[in-house]
């Protein structure tokens, strides 16, 4: 809708180039935080492609991410395939899964959608764990690669850049406009002629694809894949919290939330390893009450108020 998006894209490209140099300066502890941060930047930005405009809060990220990690584990461990095979296959499988979930949830809105996605993600996690433990036996899923943290970081940066570019294009396309209208009033959306089902399912499937891609890229970091861990419900919540903290209404909003939150979250994990869930809940409450439109929304609100004050 806005023609002046080239500057935004140029800034984003410059940031990607700058970010590529991070491994030259950061190492060890800080590089590992940077990898985690880049993972959440990709996940939250992709999550916001669907949930930002439509206001459908999805808690299924962990399921798609898990498909990525788990398929890397099982294909490399059980089938001795190269890392690159699951890297391509897993996102496609997750996209197919997201397509099914998207179709199944078409009639759900608000809290029903949230709970359905969470419940389904949990079901997938338990199902895979059960299959792994009962049928695939004690063989562990090892992911042994030559990748070091800076390789993972660069791959994730590449994915984040692609997601950003895609979001930029979507925001200037019919489907992006359709999703915004759907988020405002789905009845009106249908009555102006929008095929709401198609628009929602396409974008939900896209977020599933990217979550699995990120899950696959990050898998070598753990060397040993435990289904119960990669299908992480906590990751679903973290992605939502970070995106909402920054503000899901803007493409670069999640980025603003991820950077501080990753650092705080790391610190909490070290200081209060057993209270992290409590902290997660508190953060969620704070964001909903204090920053309902995220940091970006608050800044824009202040800017508007100053603008009004002048005129």
């Amino acid at each position, binding site marked *: 809708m806005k023609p002046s998006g080239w500057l935004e894209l140029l800034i984003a490209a410059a940031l990607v180039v700058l970010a590529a140099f991070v491994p030259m300066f950061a190492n060890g502890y800080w590089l590992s935080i940077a990898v985690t941060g880049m993972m959440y930047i990709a996940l939250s930005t992709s999550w916001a492609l669907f949930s930002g405009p439509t206001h459908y809060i999805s808690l299924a990220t962990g399921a798609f991410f898990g498909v990525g990690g788990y398929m890397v584990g099982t294909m490399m461990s059980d089938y001795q395939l190269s890392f690159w095979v699951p890297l391509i296959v897993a996102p496609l499988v997750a996209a197919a899964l997201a397509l099914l979930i998207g179709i199944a949830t078409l009639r759900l809105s608000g809290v029903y959608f949230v709970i359905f996605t969470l419940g389904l993600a949990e079901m997938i996690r338990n199902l895979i764990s059960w299959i792994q433990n009962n049928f695939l036996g004690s063989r562990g899923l090892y992911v042994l690669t030559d990748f070091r943290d800076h390789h993972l970081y660069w791959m994730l940066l590449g994915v984040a850049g692609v997601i950003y570019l895609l979001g930029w294009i979507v925001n200037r396309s019919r489907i992006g406009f359709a999703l915004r*209208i759907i988020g405002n009033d789905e009845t009106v959306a249908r*009555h*102006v*002629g929008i095929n709401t089902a198609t628009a929602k399912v396409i974008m939900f499937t896209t977020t599933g694809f990217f979550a699995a891609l990120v899950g696959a890229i990050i898998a070598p970091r753990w060397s040993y894949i435990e289904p119960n861990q990669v299908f992480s419900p906590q990751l679903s919540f973290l992605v939502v919290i970070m995106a909402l903290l920054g503000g899901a209404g803007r493409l670069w909003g999640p980025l603003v939330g991820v950077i501080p939150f990753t650092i705080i979250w790391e610190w909490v994990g070290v200081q209060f390893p057993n209270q992290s869930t409590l902290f997660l809940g508190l953060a969620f409450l704070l964001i909903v009450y204090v920053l309902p439109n995220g940091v970006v929304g608050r800044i824009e609100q202040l800017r508007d108020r100053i603008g009004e004050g002048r005129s």
Partner: protein
Amino acid sequence: MKHRPVLQVQGVTKRFGGLVAVNDMSFDVANHEMVGVIGPNGSGKTTMMNMISGAFKPTAGRISLKGRRLSDMPAQKIAREGVGRTFQLVRLLPGLNVLENVMAGAVFGHRRRWGREAEDFALEMLDRVGLEVVAAAPVSALTYIDQKRVELARVLAGEPEVLLLDEWLAGLNPTELETGIELIHALRDEGRTVVLVEHVMDAIRALCDRCVVMSAGRKIAEGSPDDVLSDREVIRAYLGDDDD
């Protein structure tokens, strides 16, 4: 002169559980015709509009646009086929500004546009309803009549073959009402095909070529505004309502 009907409603019934909201309704709307649907509150007018626009499926009967059956299509398909509607309680998109609200119609409606072309056409429609100055404003800043104008502009921007206006004049003060009637009269002069649900009798007399009168879901009269408004059954149905 009698034209081939554009919109045909044939034996349409809608049940909500035990309640029959619309009962065996039939009427035609010819090209360039402005047809009023009138009747007391709860007589099924909005339900009829909802079935034409696809918000509800009829329990029985057939609705067609230029011979194409609408009654099996989802709302978005019907909108693309060329039926545009406003809502009895105005529905704008609160997170979009005035221009974007109208562009929604231009981008996804019957005749679809994109980019600069959609924007220009939306501006033209805003101008058409008398609102060009506030294109960039948030819709929350608008008065009630202006919100109704934006909604009308959104419908016009889709260039529908048939417009459904559900009590578009309701809730306006006397000066606004005059402006509103003028605006709809101008649509009539453009030769648009319109189905108008209305309570304001002056507006019906001034605007409609023909009226369909509903009571308790049924059609009880049809004809020129003057004829139906002096019909004994119609007066009985409206008894207690002030005719002016």
